[in-house]
Protein backbone atom coordinates (compact mmCIF):
# COMPACT_ATOMS: atom_id res chain seq x y z
CA UNK A 1 0.00 0.00 0.00
CA UNK A 2 1.22 3.50 -0.81
CA UNK A 3 2.33 5.31 2.37
CA UNK A 4 0.63 8.58 3.34
CA UNK A 5 2.74 11.37 1.80
CA UNK A 6 4.46 13.75 4.17
CA UNK A 7 3.38 17.36 4.57
CA UNK A 8 6.46 18.45 2.63
CA UNK A 9 5.71 16.07 -0.25
CA UNK A 10 2.17 17.36 -0.46
CA UNK A 11 3.43 20.95 -0.46
CA UNK A 12 5.91 20.29 -3.27
CA UNK A 13 3.19 18.65 -5.37
CA UNK A 14 0.78 21.56 -4.89
CA UNK A 15 3.44 24.23 -5.34
CA UNK A 16 4.63 22.71 -8.64
CA UNK A 17 1.01 22.62 -9.81
CA UNK A 18 0.58 26.28 -8.82
CA UNK A 19 3.71 27.26 -10.79
CA UNK A 20 2.38 25.40 -13.81
CA UNK A 21 -1.00 27.17 -13.59
CA UNK A 22 -0.06 30.71 -12.67
CA UNK A 23 3.74 31.02 -13.05
CA UNK A 24 6.47 31.24 -10.42
CA UNK A 25 5.78 34.82 -9.31
CA UNK A 26 2.12 34.19 -8.47
CA UNK A 27 2.94 30.79 -6.93
CA UNK A 28 5.47 32.45 -4.61
CA UNK A 29 2.79 34.89 -3.42
CA UNK A 30 0.47 31.96 -2.73
CA UNK A 31 3.08 30.08 -0.70
CA UNK A 32 1.47 30.57 2.73
CA UNK A 33 -1.95 29.52 1.37
CA UNK A 34 -0.44 26.44 -0.25
CA UNK A 35 1.32 25.59 3.01
CA UNK A 36 -2.00 25.86 4.84
CA UNK A 37 -3.71 23.63 2.27
CA UNK A 38 -0.87 21.10 2.48
CA UNK A 39 -1.15 20.98 6.26
CA UNK A 40 -4.93 20.43 6.02
CA UNK A 41 -4.57 17.68 3.40
CA UNK A 42 -1.91 15.96 5.47
CA UNK A 43 -4.08 16.12 8.59
CA UNK A 44 -7.13 14.58 6.93
CA UNK A 45 -5.08 11.98 5.03
CA UNK A 46 -3.53 10.63 8.23
CA UNK A 47 -6.80 10.56 10.19
CA UNK A 48 -8.06 6.98 10.38
CA UNK A 49 -11.52 6.39 8.90
CA UNK A 50 -13.64 3.28 8.61
CA UNK A 51 -15.38 2.21 5.42
CA UNK A 52 -18.75 3.10 6.95
CA UNK A 53 -17.62 6.72 7.34
CA UNK A 54 -19.37 8.05 4.26
CA UNK A 55 -19.21 11.66 3.07
CA UNK A 56 -21.59 13.76 5.15
CA UNK A 57 -25.15 14.59 4.33
CA UNK A 58 -25.75 18.00 5.86
CA UNK A 59 -28.74 17.81 8.21
CA UNK A 60 -30.94 20.25 6.30
CA UNK A 61 -30.97 17.98 3.26
CA UNK A 62 -32.38 14.88 4.96
Amino acid at each position, binding site marked *: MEPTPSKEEIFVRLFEE*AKKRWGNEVAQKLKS*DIERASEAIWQV*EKFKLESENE*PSRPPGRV
Partner: protein
Amino acid sequence: MNNHRLSIAKASEGIRQREITPSELLESHLKRIERNEHDIRAWVTVDKDGARDAAAKLTEESKQGQFRGPLHGMPVGVKDIYYTAGLRTKMGSPIYSDFIPEKDSAVISALRDAGAIIIGKTETTDFAYTDPAPTRNPWNLQHTPGGSSSGSAAAVASGMCPLAFGSQTGGSVIRPAAFCGVVGMKPTYDLISRDGVYPLAWSLDHVGFFVRSVRDASLVMGVLRGNEMPSLDNSLAEPPRIGVLRGFFQDYADDVVWEGFMESVDELREAGAQVVETPLPDSFSVVHSAHRLIMSSEAASVHQDNFRSRLGDYRRKLRGLVASGLLVPASAYLRAQRIRGRFIEEVRWTLKGLDCLITPSAPTPALLGLESTGDAAFNSPWSLTGFPSVTVPSNLTKDGLPLGVQLVNLPYQEEALLSTALWCEEALGSRLWPPDYP
Protein backbone atom coordinates in the same frame (compact mmCIF):
# COMPACT_ATOMS: atom_id res chain seq x y z
CA MET B 1 -39.00 57.84 23.59
CA ASN B 2 -35.90 56.39 21.95
CA ASN B 3 -37.57 54.19 19.37
CA HIS B 4 -34.23 52.84 18.20
CA ARG B 5 -33.83 51.14 21.58
CA LEU B 6 -37.07 49.19 21.29
CA SER B 7 -36.78 45.45 20.94
CA ILE B 8 -38.66 43.83 18.08
CA ALA B 9 -41.12 42.46 20.64
CA LYS B 10 -41.82 45.92 22.11
CA ALA B 11 -41.89 47.78 18.80
CA SER B 12 -44.17 45.16 17.34
CA GLU B 13 -46.56 45.43 20.26
CA GLY B 14 -46.49 49.22 19.87
CA ILE B 15 -47.41 48.93 16.19
CA ARG B 16 -50.15 46.42 16.91
CA GLN B 17 -51.61 48.66 19.60
CA ARG B 18 -51.26 51.67 17.23
CA GLU B 19 -49.01 53.50 19.71
CA ILE B 20 -46.35 53.90 17.03
CA THR B 21 -46.54 53.64 13.24
CA PRO B 22 -44.09 51.82 10.95
CA SER B 23 -43.22 55.20 9.41
CA GLU B 24 -42.34 56.68 12.82
CA LEU B 25 -40.25 53.66 13.69
CA LEU B 26 -38.43 53.83 10.36
CA GLU B 27 -37.69 57.55 10.72
CA SER B 28 -36.11 56.93 14.15
CA HIS B 29 -33.75 54.42 12.61
CA LEU B 30 -33.00 56.55 9.55
CA LYS B 31 -32.10 59.40 11.90
CA ARG B 32 -29.88 57.03 13.82
CA ILE B 33 -28.14 55.99 10.59
CA GLU B 34 -27.70 59.61 9.55
CA ARG B 35 -26.08 60.41 12.88
CA ASN B 36 -23.76 57.43 13.23
CA GLU B 37 -23.00 56.02 9.80
CA HIS B 38 -20.08 58.37 9.20
CA ASP B 39 -18.24 56.72 12.12
CA ILE B 40 -19.39 53.15 11.83
CA ARG B 41 -19.72 52.59 8.06
CA ALA B 42 -22.17 49.71 8.36
CA TRP B 43 -24.05 50.34 5.11
CA VAL B 44 -23.29 49.91 1.44
CA THR B 45 -26.70 51.26 0.45
CA VAL B 46 -29.47 52.87 2.48
CA ASP B 47 -32.68 52.73 0.47
CA LYS B 48 -34.49 55.65 2.11
CA ASP B 49 -37.10 56.04 -0.61
CA GLY B 50 -37.91 52.35 -0.92
CA ALA B 51 -38.07 51.98 2.84
CA ARG B 52 -40.30 55.05 3.23
CA ASP B 53 -42.69 53.79 0.54
CA ALA B 54 -42.93 50.39 2.25
CA ALA B 55 -43.41 52.02 5.67
CA ALA B 56 -46.21 54.24 4.34
CA LYS B 57 -48.04 51.21 2.98
CA LEU B 58 -47.61 49.28 6.22
CA THR B 59 -48.69 52.31 8.24
CA GLU B 60 -51.86 52.46 6.18
CA GLU B 61 -52.45 48.75 6.76
CA SER B 62 -52.08 49.16 10.53
CA LYS B 63 -54.48 52.11 10.53
CA GLN B 64 -57.00 49.76 8.96
CA GLY B 65 -56.36 47.19 11.67
CA GLN B 66 -54.28 44.87 9.50
CA PHE B 67 -51.26 43.39 11.23
CA ARG B 68 -49.01 40.94 9.40
CA GLY B 69 -47.20 39.67 12.50
CA PRO B 70 -44.19 40.48 14.68
CA LEU B 71 -42.11 41.93 11.82
CA HIS B 72 -44.87 44.27 10.59
CA GLY B 73 -43.09 47.60 10.12
CA MET B 74 -39.73 46.38 11.39
CA PRO B 75 -36.70 47.99 9.67
CA VAL B 76 -34.20 45.32 8.58
CA GLY B 77 -30.63 45.50 7.32
CA VAL B 78 -29.43 42.85 4.88
CA LYS B 79 -25.89 41.73 4.15
CA ASP B 80 -24.93 42.73 0.65
CA ILE B 81 -24.77 39.17 -0.65
CA TYR B 82 -28.56 38.70 -0.48
CA TYR B 83 -30.26 39.45 -3.79
CA THR B 84 -32.66 42.36 -3.49
CA ALA B 85 -34.85 43.10 -6.52
CA GLY B 86 -33.96 46.48 -7.99
CA LEU B 87 -31.37 47.22 -5.32
CA ARG B 88 -27.67 46.94 -6.16
CA THR B 89 -25.99 43.90 -4.62
CA LYS B 90 -22.19 44.12 -4.73
CA MET B 91 -21.04 41.08 -2.69
CA GLY B 92 -18.31 43.39 -1.37
CA SER B 93 -16.49 43.12 -4.67
CA PRO B 94 -15.79 45.37 -7.68
CA ILE B 95 -16.75 42.41 -9.86
CA TYR B 96 -20.41 43.00 -8.97
CA SER B 97 -20.30 46.79 -8.55
CA ASP B 98 -23.11 47.27 -11.08
CA PHE B 99 -25.16 44.17 -10.34
CA ILE B 100 -28.86 44.82 -9.73
CA PRO B 101 -30.78 41.59 -9.13
CA GLU B 102 -34.15 41.14 -10.82
CA LYS B 103 -35.61 39.16 -7.94
CA ASP B 104 -35.38 38.93 -4.18
CA SER B 105 -33.66 36.11 -2.37
CA ALA B 106 -36.09 33.74 -0.61
CA VAL B 107 -35.39 35.29 2.80
CA ILE B 108 -35.99 38.84 1.57
CA SER B 109 -39.20 37.76 -0.09
CA ALA B 110 -40.40 36.12 3.15
CA LEU B 111 -39.43 39.21 5.15
CA ARG B 112 -41.33 41.55 2.84
CA ASP B 113 -44.38 39.29 3.02
CA ALA B 114 -44.15 39.43 6.81
CA GLY B 115 -44.19 43.23 6.70
CA ALA B 116 -40.49 43.86 7.30
CA ILE B 117 -39.00 46.99 5.73
CA ILE B 118 -35.69 46.51 3.92
CA ILE B 119 -33.84 49.62 5.03
CA GLY B 120 -30.70 48.85 3.02
CA LYS B 121 -27.71 46.64 2.37
CA THR B 122 -24.97 46.16 4.93
CA GLU B 123 -21.23 45.89 4.44
CA THR B 124 -19.70 42.49 3.88
CA THR B 125 -16.14 41.31 3.44
CA ASP B 126 -15.40 40.41 -0.20
CA PHE B 127 -17.75 37.56 -1.11
CA ALA B 128 -18.27 36.88 2.62
CA TYR B 129 -14.71 35.69 3.16
CA THR B 130 -12.11 37.47 5.31
CA ASP B 131 -10.73 40.47 3.37
CA PRO B 132 -12.13 43.16 5.69
CA ALA B 133 -15.00 45.57 5.06
CA PRO B 134 -14.60 49.23 6.17
CA THR B 135 -17.03 48.82 9.09
CA ARG B 136 -15.91 49.78 12.61
CA ASN B 137 -16.96 48.36 15.94
CA PRO B 138 -19.46 50.60 17.80
CA TRP B 139 -17.83 49.62 21.10
CA ASN B 140 -14.51 51.05 19.99
CA LEU B 141 -14.04 52.45 16.51
CA GLN B 142 -10.40 51.36 16.47
CA HIS B 143 -11.48 47.72 16.59
CA THR B 144 -12.93 45.33 14.02
CA PRO B 145 -16.62 44.46 14.30
CA GLY B 146 -15.70 40.98 13.06
CA GLY B 147 -16.85 39.53 9.78
CA SER B 148 -17.91 38.59 7.31
CA SER B 149 -21.32 40.02 8.26
CA SER B 150 -19.57 43.14 9.58
CA GLY B 151 -22.17 45.80 8.73
CA SER B 152 -25.13 43.78 9.98
CA ALA B 153 -23.57 43.20 13.41
CA ALA B 154 -22.47 46.83 13.80
CA ALA B 155 -25.82 48.20 12.58
CA VAL B 156 -27.79 46.24 15.18
CA ALA B 157 -25.26 46.99 17.94
CA SER B 158 -25.51 50.73 17.33
CA GLY B 159 -29.31 50.80 17.08
CA MET B 160 -29.49 51.52 13.35
CA CYS B 161 -31.95 48.65 12.93
CA PRO B 162 -33.40 46.07 15.33
CA LEU B 163 -32.70 43.14 12.98
CA ALA B 164 -30.11 42.44 10.31
CA PHE B 165 -29.33 39.38 8.25
CA GLY B 166 -25.94 37.84 7.64
CA SER B 167 -24.50 34.51 6.62
CA GLN B 168 -22.05 32.06 8.14
CA THR B 169 -19.68 29.64 6.41
CA GLY B 170 -17.09 29.58 9.19
CA GLY B 171 -17.96 32.06 11.95
CA SER B 172 -19.44 35.03 10.11
CA VAL B 173 -22.53 35.48 12.31
CA ILE B 174 -21.55 34.24 15.77
CA ARG B 175 -18.15 36.01 15.87
CA PRO B 176 -19.27 39.50 14.77
CA ALA B 177 -22.32 39.25 17.02
CA ALA B 178 -20.06 38.51 19.98
CA PHE B 179 -17.58 41.26 19.02
CA CYS B 180 -20.44 43.77 18.84
CA GLY B 181 -22.34 42.63 21.95
CA VAL B 182 -25.54 41.42 20.29
CA VAL B 183 -27.37 38.12 19.89
CA GLY B 184 -26.43 36.20 16.72
CA MET B 185 -28.33 33.16 15.51
CA LYS B 186 -27.28 30.52 12.99
CA PRO B 187 -30.13 28.06 12.42
CA THR B 188 -29.66 24.49 11.22
CA TYR B 189 -28.09 24.18 7.76
CA ASP B 190 -30.65 24.76 5.00
CA LEU B 191 -33.53 25.14 7.47
CA ILE B 192 -33.77 28.65 6.07
CA SER B 193 -33.46 28.81 2.29
CA ARG B 194 -30.18 30.08 0.83
CA ASP B 195 -31.86 30.72 -2.51
CA GLY B 196 -30.63 34.08 -3.79
CA VAL B 197 -27.74 34.36 -1.32
CA TYR B 198 -24.39 34.46 -3.12
CA PRO B 199 -22.49 31.32 -2.08
CA LEU B 200 -19.05 31.03 -0.57
CA ALA B 201 -19.16 27.25 -0.01
CA TRP B 202 -22.50 25.56 -0.68
CA SER B 203 -22.37 22.80 1.88
CA LEU B 204 -21.24 25.15 4.67
CA ASP B 205 -23.18 28.36 4.00
CA HIS B 206 -25.91 29.22 6.51
CA VAL B 207 -28.42 32.04 6.68
CA GLY B 208 -28.18 33.82 10.04
CA PHE B 209 -29.23 37.03 11.74
CA PHE B 210 -28.50 39.60 14.44
CA VAL B 211 -30.92 40.95 17.06
CA ARG B 212 -30.69 42.50 20.51
CA SER B 213 -32.31 39.74 22.59
CA VAL B 214 -33.09 36.04 22.53
CA ARG B 215 -36.82 36.76 22.56
CA ASP B 216 -36.37 38.75 19.37
CA ALA B 217 -34.42 35.85 17.86
CA SER B 218 -37.36 33.59 18.60
CA LEU B 219 -39.80 35.98 16.92
CA VAL B 220 -37.61 36.12 13.82
CA MET B 221 -37.23 32.34 13.71
CA GLY B 222 -41.01 32.08 13.96
CA VAL B 223 -41.47 34.28 10.91
CA LEU B 224 -38.76 32.48 8.93
CA ARG B 225 -40.38 29.14 9.70
CA GLY B 226 -43.93 30.25 8.96
CA ASN B 227 -44.75 30.98 12.62
CA GLU B 228 -43.94 27.46 13.75
CA MET B 229 -41.90 28.66 16.73
CA PRO B 230 -44.01 28.97 19.87
CA SER B 231 -43.42 31.75 22.39
CA LEU B 232 -40.48 31.16 24.72
CA ASP B 233 -42.49 32.13 27.80
CA ASN B 234 -42.01 29.53 30.53
CA SER B 235 -40.71 27.06 27.97
CA LEU B 236 -37.81 25.82 30.13
CA ALA B 237 -39.31 23.88 33.03
CA GLU B 238 -36.03 23.60 34.92
CA PRO B 239 -32.50 24.99 34.67
CA PRO B 240 -30.60 23.56 31.71
CA ARG B 241 -27.90 20.91 31.63
CA ILE B 242 -24.98 22.49 29.85
CA GLY B 243 -21.87 20.74 28.48
CA VAL B 244 -18.71 22.85 28.80
CA LEU B 245 -16.08 22.13 26.15
CA ARG B 246 -12.48 22.71 27.22
CA GLY B 247 -9.39 21.24 25.50
CA PHE B 248 -8.88 23.12 22.26
CA PHE B 249 -11.16 25.96 23.36
CA GLN B 250 -9.26 26.62 26.57
CA ASP B 251 -5.85 26.27 24.90
CA TYR B 252 -6.72 28.51 21.94
CA ALA B 253 -8.61 31.28 23.78
CA ASP B 254 -6.92 34.46 24.97
CA ASP B 255 -6.60 34.53 28.74
CA VAL B 256 -9.07 37.40 28.97
CA VAL B 257 -11.63 35.41 27.00
CA TRP B 258 -11.23 32.21 28.99
CA GLU B 259 -11.38 34.04 32.33
CA GLY B 260 -14.52 35.89 31.21
CA PHE B 261 -16.00 32.63 29.95
CA MET B 262 -15.37 30.81 33.23
CA GLU B 263 -16.96 33.72 35.13
CA SER B 264 -20.04 33.31 32.93
CA VAL B 265 -20.10 29.55 33.46
CA ASP B 266 -19.92 30.13 37.23
CA GLU B 267 -22.83 32.58 36.99
CA LEU B 268 -24.87 30.01 35.10
CA ARG B 269 -24.02 27.36 37.68
CA GLU B 270 -24.96 29.69 40.54
CA ALA B 271 -28.27 30.39 38.80
CA GLY B 272 -28.99 26.66 38.90
CA ALA B 273 -27.64 25.24 35.64
CA GLN B 274 -26.09 21.78 35.76
CA VAL B 275 -22.66 22.33 34.26
CA VAL B 276 -21.07 19.17 32.90
CA GLU B 277 -17.43 18.91 31.80
CA THR B 278 -17.77 17.43 28.32
CA PRO B 279 -14.89 15.88 26.37
CA LEU B 280 -14.33 16.80 22.75
CA PRO B 281 -15.07 14.05 20.22
CA ASP B 282 -12.07 12.19 18.72
CA SER B 283 -12.51 13.68 15.28
CA PHE B 284 -12.40 17.23 16.66
CA SER B 285 -8.61 17.15 16.13
CA VAL B 286 -9.11 17.37 12.35
CA VAL B 287 -12.33 19.36 11.99
CA HIS B 288 -10.58 22.63 11.22
CA SER B 289 -8.54 20.98 8.48
CA ALA B 290 -11.66 19.30 7.08
CA HIS B 291 -13.55 22.60 7.17
CA ARG B 292 -10.68 24.37 5.42
CA LEU B 293 -10.51 21.82 2.60
CA ILE B 294 -14.27 21.79 2.02
CA MET B 295 -14.52 25.59 2.10
CA SER B 296 -11.57 26.15 -0.22
CA SER B 297 -12.64 23.46 -2.72
CA GLU B 298 -16.22 24.72 -2.91
CA ALA B 299 -15.16 28.40 -3.03
CA ALA B 300 -12.78 27.50 -5.87
CA SER B 301 -15.66 25.99 -7.79
CA VAL B 302 -17.92 29.01 -7.11
CA HIS B 303 -15.26 31.46 -8.27
CA GLN B 304 -13.48 29.48 -10.99
CA ASP B 305 -14.80 31.50 -13.94
CA ASN B 306 -14.43 34.97 -12.43
CA PHE B 307 -11.02 33.95 -11.13
CA ARG B 308 -9.82 33.38 -14.69
CA SER B 309 -11.19 36.61 -16.12
CA ARG B 310 -10.98 39.00 -13.14
CA LEU B 311 -8.02 37.79 -11.08
CA GLY B 312 -6.94 41.36 -10.32
CA ASP B 313 -10.24 42.06 -8.58
CA TYR B 314 -9.67 39.38 -5.95
CA ARG B 315 -8.15 40.61 -2.72
CA ARG B 316 -5.33 38.72 -1.05
CA LYS B 317 -7.17 36.38 1.32
CA LEU B 318 -9.92 35.25 -1.04
CA ARG B 319 -7.37 34.91 -3.84
CA GLY B 320 -5.37 32.56 -1.62
CA LEU B 321 -8.46 30.56 -0.66
CA VAL B 322 -9.64 30.10 -4.24
CA ALA B 323 -6.19 29.31 -5.61
CA SER B 324 -5.44 26.74 -2.92
CA GLY B 325 -8.92 25.26 -3.39
CA LEU B 326 -8.18 24.76 -7.09
CA LEU B 327 -5.17 22.66 -6.08
CA VAL B 328 -6.93 20.39 -3.55
CA PRO B 329 -7.34 16.84 -4.94
CA ALA B 330 -10.90 15.46 -5.10
CA SER B 331 -9.87 12.59 -2.83
CA ALA B 332 -8.86 15.05 -0.08
CA TYR B 333 -12.14 16.94 -0.43
CA LEU B 334 -14.10 13.70 -0.10
CA ARG B 335 -12.02 12.55 2.83
CA ALA B 336 -12.80 15.86 4.54
CA GLN B 337 -16.51 15.25 3.91
CA ARG B 338 -16.17 11.76 5.41
CA ILE B 339 -14.52 13.22 8.51
CA ARG B 340 -17.37 15.70 8.65
CA GLY B 341 -19.91 12.86 8.65
CA ARG B 342 -18.03 11.16 11.47
CA PHE B 343 -17.83 14.42 13.46
CA ILE B 344 -21.57 15.00 13.06
CA GLU B 345 -22.29 11.57 14.54
CA GLU B 346 -19.82 12.09 17.38
CA VAL B 347 -21.32 15.49 18.28
CA ARG B 348 -24.78 13.91 18.35
CA TRP B 349 -23.46 11.48 20.95
CA THR B 350 -21.71 14.24 22.86
CA LEU B 351 -25.00 16.14 23.13
CA LYS B 352 -26.90 13.19 24.59
CA GLY B 353 -28.50 14.19 27.89
CA LEU B 354 -27.48 17.82 27.46
CA ASP B 355 -29.54 20.89 26.58
CA CYS B 356 -26.56 22.44 24.78
CA LEU B 357 -22.81 22.70 24.48
CA ILE B 358 -21.21 25.95 25.55
CA THR B 359 -17.94 27.60 24.47
CA PRO B 360 -16.68 31.16 24.23
CA SER B 361 -18.02 32.72 21.03
CA ALA B 362 -14.55 33.68 19.78
CA PRO B 363 -10.96 33.12 20.89
CA THR B 364 -10.36 36.86 21.33
CA PRO B 365 -12.39 39.99 21.93
CA ALA B 366 -12.74 42.29 18.88
CA LEU B 367 -9.20 42.77 17.58
CA LEU B 368 -7.51 46.17 17.44
CA GLY B 369 -7.37 47.48 13.86
CA LEU B 370 -9.45 46.72 10.81
CA GLU B 371 -6.98 44.46 8.99
CA SER B 372 -8.35 41.23 10.42
CA THR B 373 -11.93 40.26 11.22
CA GLY B 374 -10.79 37.76 13.85
CA ASP B 375 -10.65 34.00 14.03
CA ALA B 376 -13.55 31.64 13.25
CA ALA B 377 -11.95 28.61 14.94
CA PHE B 378 -14.62 28.41 17.69
CA ASN B 379 -17.50 28.60 15.20
CA SER B 380 -16.38 26.65 12.14
CA PRO B 381 -16.87 23.22 13.79
CA TRP B 382 -20.59 24.01 14.12
CA SER B 383 -20.79 25.34 10.58
CA LEU B 384 -19.25 22.02 9.58
CA THR B 385 -21.91 20.03 11.46
CA GLY B 386 -24.74 22.29 10.31
CA PHE B 387 -26.09 22.25 13.89
CA PRO B 388 -27.78 25.42 15.15
CA SER B 389 -25.79 27.83 17.28
CA VAL B 390 -26.48 31.11 19.01
CA THR B 391 -24.30 33.65 20.79
CA VAL B 392 -25.51 35.55 23.82
CA PRO B 393 -23.61 38.58 25.18
CA SER B 394 -22.04 37.62 28.50
CA ASN B 395 -19.72 40.28 29.89
CA LEU B 396 -17.23 43.04 29.06
CA THR B 397 -13.44 42.97 29.16
CA LYS B 398 -11.57 45.55 31.26
CA ASP B 399 -11.13 47.48 28.01
CA GLY B 400 -14.87 47.61 27.54
CA LEU B 401 -15.16 45.11 24.69
CA PRO B 402 -18.03 42.60 24.69
CA LEU B 403 -17.63 38.87 25.10
CA GLY B 404 -20.23 36.24 24.30
CA VAL B 405 -21.04 32.61 25.00
CA GLN B 406 -21.83 30.28 22.11
CA LEU B 407 -24.50 27.62 22.61
CA VAL B 408 -24.92 24.66 20.25
CA ASN B 409 -27.68 22.07 20.01
CA LEU B 410 -28.85 19.27 17.71
CA PRO B 411 -30.28 20.00 14.25
CA TYR B 412 -33.85 21.34 14.17
CA GLN B 413 -33.78 22.02 17.92
CA GLU B 414 -33.95 25.80 17.48
CA GLU B 415 -36.82 26.15 19.90
CA ALA B 416 -35.00 24.22 22.63
CA LEU B 417 -31.76 26.05 21.89
CA LEU B 418 -33.43 29.45 22.16
CA SER B 419 -35.19 28.44 25.37
CA THR B 420 -31.82 27.57 26.87
CA ALA B 421 -30.32 30.76 25.45
CA LEU B 422 -33.11 32.81 27.04
CA TRP B 423 -32.42 31.16 30.38
CA CYS B 424 -28.71 31.96 30.01
CA GLU B 425 -29.41 35.53 28.89
CA GLU B 426 -31.52 36.12 31.99
CA ALA B 427 -28.94 34.46 34.26
CA LEU B 428 -26.09 36.51 32.78
CA GLY B 429 -28.16 39.70 32.75
CA SER B 430 -26.00 41.35 30.15
CA ARG B 431 -27.98 43.17 27.53
CA LEU B 432 -25.43 45.64 26.28
CA TRP B 433 -25.38 49.05 24.57
CA PRO B 434 -22.15 50.67 23.40
CA PRO B 435 -21.53 53.72 25.61
CA ASP B 436 -20.84 56.04 22.66
CA TYR B 437 -24.01 54.95 20.82
CA PRO B 438 -26.64 54.75 23.59
